[in-house]
């Protein structure tokens, strides 16, 4: 009989958490590809003025994504 006393709301929350974490991991992997491609292209054509701006932007996005992942592990 205990089989039918399943708490469906807990399963929903747990699966939501898993989905968010997987999404965040995929997004993080995508950002790493972007960062790598940016570095590759930047070695081919290099602009002294723009490189720091674009590099800091992608690093900021990466850091925010990592912090979001850590947040999802802690608070969700």
């Amino acid at each position: 009989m205990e089989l039918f006393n399943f708490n469906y709301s807990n399963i929903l929350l747990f699966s939501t958490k898993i989905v968010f974490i997987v999404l965040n991991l995929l997004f993080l992997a995508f950002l790493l590809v972007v960062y790598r491609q940016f570095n590759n292209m930047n070695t081919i054509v290099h602009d002294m003025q723009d490189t720091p701006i674009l590099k800091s932007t992608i690093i900021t996005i990466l850091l925010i994504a990592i912090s979001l992942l850590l947040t999802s592990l802690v608070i969700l």
Partner: protein
Amino acid sequence: MADIFVASREEKNAPVPKISSDKIEAEKSTFDDKVHLFSSFSLNPTDVSFENQEKDEKILLFVRKSKILNLKWIGVAIGLTVAPLFIIFLIDWTLLLGLVSFKYVFYFAALYFLVVVAYAYVNFITWYFNIALITNLRVIDVDFAGLIYKNIAITKLSLVQDVSSTQVGVVRNMFNYGDILVQTAGNVDNFIFEAAPNPEKASRIIENLIGKHGTV
């Protein structure tokens, strides 16, 4: 002996007319030589360098696709940023917060906006790294699309045979951008600089360069 012409005292003391430095700069070039983040056409850029650049090689022309082409993804990014504001009014919040807690909604919103920022960034660097460079020795075409496609084509100026530019359509004529076709000799593929700003001026510069090399 009688003098033929004697300048009056006023004429002798008259100051020599000077051309202002602004005028000289304006006459020198209508385009600046500094490449900034949003430059799409630059003559003699000083801050740009590329892989395998030779010591005596100087970049004469730097071309990206026209800035106008960025409007599409900028519009999409703005739309994606504004869309949640409309959704806020459409959603029944009491029902939603009854199902999931607020932290889930907040987390999803944060992830969503970060994805939008990443979308804008990827589109920007796709435009940013699509570059055509004309140096005093070579023609270089860097194609970069969708993060996974990358093509770098290089040919010597001595192999360039002909240059032509096409501007088809109202928008292209209005914003003065078009395609530049650089035809090369032998087995080397032709170069197409798509949606380049000032195509006539760019093709004229390349024409002058290949004229110097005596291939035409």
